[in-house]
């Protein structure tokens, strides 16, 4: 099996599973507790159907959409994800270059393994930075100021991770960062020699953005969950969010908003966007899926800020359903991470191209010429 055999999410996932040592694959693939929310995030899209309009002389549909003050070529972009260097030795560089090529946003996690400065050297595409507020407030200012200097276009603050989710697959596989060998995982690393060779022969693993502030996760093998619980600030509140928005001064999203009340509050404090998200089912299991919650959010704050639907997106039709119900754009994590694990930059490009083609084809089949044509009337609930 190779990249050219990968037609969809499942194929990329399968190939990534072959390439990656098990603890790493399961870190990407897993959710919290019983993974009920993880499953629901995607299943939710199947609870409604698309109703096409015919004979609308679509021609070539225009898929461009504006988000965070930038025109992007398709209404789907890369969510921020931690430690990409573990999934492929090119890590964030591969993702950023692929996103640039397809004309959409790449997002960088606070927990990235490549630095802000390095990424801005390798990619001129639109970039968003994802902020985690650490107990050490100096780090927040430092990250914001560096992103400004490095030409990042947007920033988001993740608010659904005040404490680490219960990712039981990571307990079982002993996943730590950087990877630590346990008896059980050893076998898995040994049977994926290419990954191990690449990991060891390329640049050193580090949490490049925070390594000057904390040794945790860079030099000491730490569970991600321990890192979160020790370093992130559980006291984080709306004032902190407002502070970040002001200091940044540009397009700013709150990532992980789910309730209508909070969405309204995001408008009040001056956020330009929210990412409707439960962190891909990795945090609070039993949490509602973004797609299920979308209509209520769109009704309350649609038009007042941009709504990014984040979580469970696997298909072009998922994107179209979300846009029809009021999302400005969608973002996804696992979708491109498996492609990264499957084939680095080439893999992510192939995946983004497939998603691009799906969205284009499905817009034609739906009879929509532009993103604005996607409306509630295209959707019927069962």
């Amino acid at each position, binding site marked *: 099996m190779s990249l050219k055999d990968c037609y969809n999410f499942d194929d990329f996932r399968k190939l990534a599973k072959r390439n990656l040592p098990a603890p790493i694959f399961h870190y990407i693939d897993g959710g919290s*507790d*019983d993974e*009920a*929310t993880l499953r*629901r995030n995607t299943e939710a899209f199947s609870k409604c159907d698309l109703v096409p309009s015919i004979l609308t002389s679509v021609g070539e549909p225009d898929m461009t959409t504006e988000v965070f003050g930038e025109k992007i070529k398709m209404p789907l972009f890369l969510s921020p994800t931690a430690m990409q260097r573990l999934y492929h030795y090119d890590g964030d560089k591969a993702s950023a270059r692929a996103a640039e090529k397809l004309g959409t946003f790449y997002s960088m996690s606070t927990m990235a393994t490549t630095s802000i400065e390095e990424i801005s050297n390798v990619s001129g595409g639109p970039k968003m930075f994802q902020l985690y507020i650490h107990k050490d407030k100096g780090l927040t200012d430092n990250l914001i100021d560096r992103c400004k200097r490095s030409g990042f276009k947007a920033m988001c603050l993740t*608010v*659904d991770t*005040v*404490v*680490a*989710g*219960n990712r*039981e697959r990571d*307990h*079982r596989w002993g996943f730590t960062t950087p990877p630590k060998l346990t008896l059980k995982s050893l076998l898995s690393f040994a049977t994926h020699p290419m990954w191990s060779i690449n990991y060891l022969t390329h640049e050193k693993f580090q949490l490049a953005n925070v390594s000057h502030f904390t040794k945790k996760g860079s030099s000491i093998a730490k569970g991600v969950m321990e890192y979160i619980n020790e370093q992130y600030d*559980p*006291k*984080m*509140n*709306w004032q*902190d*969010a407002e502070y970040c928005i002001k200091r940044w001064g540009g397009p700013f999203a*709150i990532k*992980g*908003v*789910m*309730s209508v*009340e*909070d969405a309204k*509050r995001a408008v009040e404090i001056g956020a330009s966007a929210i990412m409707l998200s439960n962190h891909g089912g990795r*945090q*609070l*299991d*039993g*949490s*509602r*899926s973004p797609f*299920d*919650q979308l209509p209520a959010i769109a009704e309350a704050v649609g038009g007042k800020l941009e709504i990014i639907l984040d979580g469970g997106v696997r298909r072009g039709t998922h994107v179209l359903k979300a846009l029809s119900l009021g999302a400005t754009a969608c973002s996804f994590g696992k979708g491109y991470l498996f492609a990264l694990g499957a084939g680095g930059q080439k893999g992510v490009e192939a995946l983004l191209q497939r998603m691009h083609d799906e969205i284009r084809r499905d817009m034609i089949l739906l009879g929509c010429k532009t993103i604005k044509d996607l409306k509630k009337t295209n959707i019927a*609930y069962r």
Partner: protein
Amino acid sequence: MGLKDCHNFSDFRKLAKRKLPSPIFHYIDGAADDEVTYQRNTEAFNEVDLVPNVLRGVENVDLSTTIFGKKLDLPFYCSPTALQRLFHYQGERAVGKAAQKFNTMFGVSSLATVSVEEISSMIDTPKLFQFYYHKDKGLNNAIVERVKAAKFDVMALTVDTITGGNRERDLRTGFTSPPKLTLSSLISFAIKPMWGINYVTRGKFELPHLQDHVKEGTSTATSVGNYFSTMLDQSMNWKDAENLCSKWGGHFALKGVMSVEDAKRAVDIGCTGIMVSNHGGRQLDGARSPFDQLAEIVDAVGDKVDVICEGGIQRGTHMLKALSMGAKACAGGRLYLYALAAAGQKGVERALNQYRVELERDMKLMGCTKISDLSRKNLRFRK
């Protein structure tokens, strides 16, 4: 597989399955008829989703809750379950001490294998005694007096076992109390020698609350279903419950109330709490799940008595959902029984701790710092 590999309910269940002779495992694990209600008890939680609130500043979470006038550190407690020394030689001693460690309530069954006197000298955490209403009125009176003398805090009368449920797994495995060897169970006891050795060497098996009055279950092997059907009083009615309530004179609950009508009636006879429960799916198969029924009950009597949601709970988030719906506290049997079978007191402690940690984490992720922050505003039902 050891205790340290147990990260959740199903891990404990798996380890218990390895440790226990199969008739005993299936006695815990099984339920009535087709086990539809048993499955639904847990599934019901999946049809409602949580909607968290963010940026609330959630550094310190207080999980304490007050039921029956007692403050517990946790919003859940251990439901009374029978025959615990069959599951692990430490039996009720293990569960009681673990409950004490987490300062939550310990429910003791009429069919307990350690006496109320011993339990109350051993722990001072709040204690509930679960009452089975026997045909023998002398026995009923004697038990009330003993439990009073032992200074228990709450009495709960179980009302859903008027006759034995049809537990087909027990029929197949030939489960009786005390264990009687049949051909098919023999093999199972033989391949779990540690269980057998502990059972035989760690003190005689007895039902201390009943043994002076009945020989069934103590010296004569009987199935639990058979015990219910022959020993318990099928003519038990509201008058009897009311009499028992006033005879007891303290906090009193009915365990196994499902209808709104009955819940109201429980208030009328002087109950201070009810357990919305179908006995873990072990009695009437097809009965509604406690969580499905909870909202109606809370709406009807939630401001008058403590409503406890019992059954099917396997996760902290399940408890959050029940508490958001308006339950004062949650309770469960299997949530600690597999852990007891897996590793005695250490096992129960690990399980209770996991639920505590889950609840604390989930409260933070919900943006809540105390139990009273939870409300129906946090819930959305799927259409």
